[in-house]
């Protein structure tokens, strides 16, 4: 069997709190330092310690944008990881496991619930096996996986003796790095790049960094000495020169960095997964460097008592002229609905970063879904303008964040920037962010008013009726420009009115901004087409399914199947003309979404008048894999797919 170089799917698993993330971050960074592309995704329970979490990293010489079903390298140091993932390991792949846990059985692991346990038992039973780690390993081995056994606790002892540091023998936390390092050794990966990555991830704790580097070296050498590499394990990683223009970024940092560049100086939030990271990143980096100045900028981040306070406080901040935002997830966004309408009514520019997770109610708090599209477009009573803008990946989310603030300012309305758990909890290599690419556009924000902005009473007319539905905006505190705001219908000055004629005019003014936005927003921000424009099959999607769809298109192309993909980015106002023209003459329209209803599909029918022919949906909380999308489209292409395909994979 030939070696497979620089193309693999690597998974590390373990109890939450045992360092799975750190190990995966080290692995990802090491690969990236070795000039390889990676896409990593984190799966975890709503739990602090003890439940199973795992991190999948796909590595390639070309950019990768999603995960695959099979595991080529399964790195474990607990029993649960083996029992949960053994049947995903490919032929020629391997499992690194703790030999001290061979006899642990499924029933001894309380964190695998009855449903999961029954499924695993069924698999093992079918193969005529028992329910221990040993049985699971045997199953994998019989399907061509190579097994690598490591006596972690014994090795810890040895390492402690070798380094003359007896305390280390108790440091079971280090098994994560030890396991990771073994995998790197088996893969033949550059030990220096690994050490560099460890030092980076532990850069805040120098002594821990060095201990971990030593432990990694110890395990790297131990593994190399113990295993020949001629045992059927086919995967290898070889470093390549690093591309200077490539960085490695996590989804929960990109939008926050976009906020800094956008000039967002006030952010409020109430803790919620997976949105909190955005605010915490801003707060951790609250002091900002400025170009051409020794003075510092800053972001004031306020943790509020609830999401109602978060959005209303952000609106208060926005009224002073500061670019202001709040970040939340579905449950929090539900609470924000009333205030969203106030911002719409009073034409306040506000950005809400909506990191979707699986709902309704608490739903699957740490799992992925795109179920909030309809809600984002319709949240709040009555009718008011809002822009809903959806990013497809980490890179887009950086630039889109700046654009979201521009839209908010230019059209003086709330902008809901849709992100999701899959973006927030993934990491990938991507082109370095270019902060100069998107200009800051503040629209009609004036430092002072002119006489023409005043009404008969001499007051500034904040909501002046004219041919332009956008009226000049003034920050609170500006001299000679006093105005009023109210959630009631209001006059041009901002005082309460119930006059029927004025009501109509004010509704027309506010809602008219959406027409203007549709006219002015660039096509690339409305909808984008990828793939073969003359393809018969058109896939349509939005948000984070972009990555998996693009990767699937490439695979389908290898099979001679031509498809195109239309990624809708502006969800409201809906870019009907752009989408319609991008759809062109495609014969088969396939709606692909991470929700039950196919919410985008309905929007397309509503706005474009085109009913999709096939629907590919998933709502089990796990992102779509390359295999799933590839197979689903392939079935459609072959003409033997049902109208609705529900994807169900993932652990």
């Amino acid at each position, binding site marked *: 069997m030939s070696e497979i170089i620089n193309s693999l799917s690597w998974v590390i698993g373990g109890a939450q709190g045992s360092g799975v993330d750190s190990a995966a971050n080290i692995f990802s960074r090491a690969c990236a*330092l070795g*000039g390889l592309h990676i896409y990593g995704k984190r799966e975890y329970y709503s739990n602090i310690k003890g439940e199973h979490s795992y991190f999948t990293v796909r590595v390639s010489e070309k950019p990768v944008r999603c995960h695959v079903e099979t595991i080529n390298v399964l790195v474990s140091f607990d029993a649960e990881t083996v029992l949960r993932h053994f049947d995903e390991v490919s032929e020629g792949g391997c499992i690194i496991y703790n030999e001290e846990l061979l006899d642990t059985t499924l029933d001894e692991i309380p964190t695998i619930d009855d449903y999961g346990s029954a499924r695993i038992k069924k698999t093992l039973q079918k193969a005529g096996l028992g329910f221990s780690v040993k049985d699971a390993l045997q199953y994998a081995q019989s399907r061509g996986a190579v097994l690598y056994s490591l006596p972690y606790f014994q090795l810890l002892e040895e390492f402690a003796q070798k380094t003359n540091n007896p305390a280390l023998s108790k440091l079971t936390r280090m098994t994560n790095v030890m396991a990771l390092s073994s995998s790197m050794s088996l893969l033949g990966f550059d030990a220096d790049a690994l050490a560099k990555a460890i030092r980076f991830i532990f850069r805040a704790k120098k002594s821990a960094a060095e201990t971990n580097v030593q432990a990694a070296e110890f395990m790297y050498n131990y593994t190399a000495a113990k295993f020949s590499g001629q045992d059927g394990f086919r995967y290898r990683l070889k470093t390549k020169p*690093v591309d*200077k223009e*490539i*960085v*490695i*970024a996590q989804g929960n*940092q990109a939008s926050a960095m976009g906020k*800094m*560049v*956008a*000039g967002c*100086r*006030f952010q409020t939030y109430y803790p919620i997964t997976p949105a909190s990271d955005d605010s915490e990143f801003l707060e951790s980096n*609250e*002091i*900002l*460097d400025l*170009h*051409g100045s020794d*003075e510092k*900028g*800053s*972001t*004031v981040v306020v943790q*509020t*008592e*609830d999401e*109602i*306070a978060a959005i*209303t*406080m952000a609106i*208060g*901040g*926005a*009224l*002073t002229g*500061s*670019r202001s935002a709040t970040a939340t997830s579905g449950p929090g966004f539900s609470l924000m609905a009333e*205030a969203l309408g*106030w911002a719409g009514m009073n034409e306040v520019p506000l950005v809400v970063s909506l990191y979707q997770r699986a709902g309704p109610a608490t739903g699957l708090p740490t799992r992925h879904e795109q179920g909030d599209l309809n809600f984002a477009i319709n949240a709040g009573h009555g009718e008011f303008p809002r822009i809903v803008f959806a990013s497809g990946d980490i890179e887009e989310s950086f630039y889109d964040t700046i654009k979201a603030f521009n839209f908010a300012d230019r059209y003086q309305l709330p902008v809901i920037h849709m992100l999701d758990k899959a973006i927030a909890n993934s990491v990938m290599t991507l082109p370095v*962010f270019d*902060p100069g690419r998107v*200009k800051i556009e*503040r629209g009609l924000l004036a430092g002072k008013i002119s006489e023409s902005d005043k009404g008969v009473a001499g007051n500034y007319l904040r909501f002046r009726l004219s041919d332009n539905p956008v009226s000049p905006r003034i*920050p*609170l*505190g*500006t*001299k000679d*420009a*006093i105005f*009023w*705001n*109210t*959630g009631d219908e209001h006059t041009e000055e*901002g*005082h*309460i009115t119930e006059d029927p004629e004025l009501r109509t005019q004010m509704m027309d003014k506010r809602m008219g901004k959406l027409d203007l936005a549709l006219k002015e927003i660039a096509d690339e921000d409305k909808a984008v087409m990828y793939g073969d424009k003359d393809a018969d099959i058109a896939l349509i999607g939005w948000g984070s399914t972009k990555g998996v769809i693009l990767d699937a298109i490439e695979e389908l192309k290898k099979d001679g199947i031509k498809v195109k993909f239309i990624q809708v980015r502006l969800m409201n106002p809906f870019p009907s003309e752009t989408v319609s023209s991008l759809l062109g003459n495609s014969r088969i329209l396939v709606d692909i979404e991470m929700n039950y209803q196919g919410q985008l599909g309905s929007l397309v029918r509503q706005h474009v008048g085109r009913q999709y022919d096939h629907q590919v949906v998933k709502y089990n909380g796990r992102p779509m894999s390359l295999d799933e999308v590839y197979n689903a489209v392939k079935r459609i292409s072959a003409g033997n797919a049902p109208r609705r395909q529900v994807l169900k994979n993932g652990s």
Partner: protein
Amino acid sequence: MALKLADYKTEVHNDWCPGCGDFGILNSIQMALADMQVPPHNTAIFSGVGCSGKTPHFIKTYGIHTLHGRVLPFAQGAKLANPDLEVLAVGGDGDGLGIGAGHFVSAGRRNVDMVYIIFNNAVYGLTKGQASPTLKLGVKTKSLPQPNVNNSVNPIALALVSGFTFLARGYSYDIKHLKDIIKKAVAHKGLAFVDVLQPCPTYNDINTKEWFSGQDNLDPETKKVMPRLYKLEETGYDGIVNDPSEVNEKMAKVVEKSNEWGSKIPIGVFYQNEHIPTYQERISARIPNYIQNSPAGQKIADETGRSITNIERLVNDLRLDR
């Protein structure tokens, strides 16, 4: 040129009921601002929803009439983004202590340097007189189908334990006294709370102007009318925390005094403690130039629209070529 009281008034028709206590509070606010010569353009008055929510429309400063129960977070947001603004929040007792009670407590924890005035008439006036959180248990005001089944909240005590650092109570028909309280509240460094007792002539037929003035509260011997309200300052009461060591003692007194109700009801300043850092001071401790370069004041782009924020330090962490 000195600002006159008229400079704080708008032309907007006032549609409160004749005899409404709101008028006295409105006048007191305007008089306090004029007395203090607070620049109108540098002042923002936020309000909740209900009759009192209309207050900003009658005052010629920036006026932000927000949502029911949400006046405090709106107001705090503006003050934190622009700490130069003079921010006053006003609202009803239902607004602040019912639907907005969570914000009330949390605002106390922050101690943002601003003023919050509750128009307290014990009923929801604009929705036709339902019981508010300050209506006493068992009281049946005229539009209640049954006597009030809930106990009342003590706004001063709640504000105290929540962390407000200035606590006072006024009466809407004692404008001069209320004006002085509002001036002290504005001058206070930290979050100031003013609970204003006011009749609702339309829906509260129990706590009426006559009731407050004690028309039914006769001295058993002299048969003279005994006004229910009395001024704390006239009794030698001193709620000012001069030294942090006095806090517990002064707080205990606030609880005791604020529980007085019935035939004797205190008004005046219950408590003032300027030893607690304001939220602005807490931010300044982390962001040294916060006040001079506040969120609202920061330049974010150059003349060509290019962002001036330099994220290179953070991007370097993501780079792989070093």
